[in-house]
């Protein structure tokens, strides 16, 4: 993502809504979790190498708006620790057949409550679920 979003204005195919998203994502403070990255080059980004669950537990106790989470590996780590409060699952009308499974490595039940859903013109259905813990 670092290779695309900061340079999206150079992409003639980028629509207004893509640019809006890119600008928001570039601007928002970010944390990247990685044991192998040496430094985070992206604007407004802090690199955290270890103890990501403890980092998030600390951040959740600080005042502020929500914390957006992206990426399968990080999501799985937080699912295993039951740290995710809301799941916005954009269900795509496609069978991939291969790739990385979102819920791999989660070996306990995570009870959720569906509180809203949206259907997009593309056929994507968004399930908005909250943790029922």
């Amino acid at each position, binding site marked *: *993502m670092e290779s695309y979003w900061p340079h999206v204005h150079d992409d003639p195919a980028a629509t*207004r*809504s*893509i640019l*809006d*998203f890119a600008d*928001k*994502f570039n601007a*928002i*403070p*970010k*944390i*990247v*979790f*990685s044991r192998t*990255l040496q430094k*985070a080059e*992206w604007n407004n980004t802090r690199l955290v190498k270890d103890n*990501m669950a403890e980092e*998030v537990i600390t*951040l*959740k106790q600080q*005042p*502020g*708006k*929500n*914390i*957006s*989470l*992206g*990426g*399968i*590996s*990080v*999501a799985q780590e*937080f699912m295993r620790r039951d*740290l*995710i*409060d*809301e*799941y*916005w*699952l*954009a*269900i*795509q*009308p*496609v*069978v991939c057949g*291969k*790739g*990385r*499974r*979102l819920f791999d490595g989660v070996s306990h039940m995570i009870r959720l409550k569906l509180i809203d859903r*949206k259907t*997009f*013109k*593309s056929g*994507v259905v*968004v399930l908005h679920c909250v943790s029922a813990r």
Partner: protein
Amino acid sequence: MFSEMRKLILAINVSLDGFGDHTVAVADDELHEFYSGLLDTSDLAVFGRVTY
């Protein structure tokens, strides 16, 4: 007190067979606007190296 804590929210594309690879996603304006709206509710984004 607990209800006032900021929430950790996961927003991700998922295929019908449970894969979460963003490269297979429909990525039209409506979906970008949806993700933009979620970012508006947040003041921090966290992710891993692969996403990065």
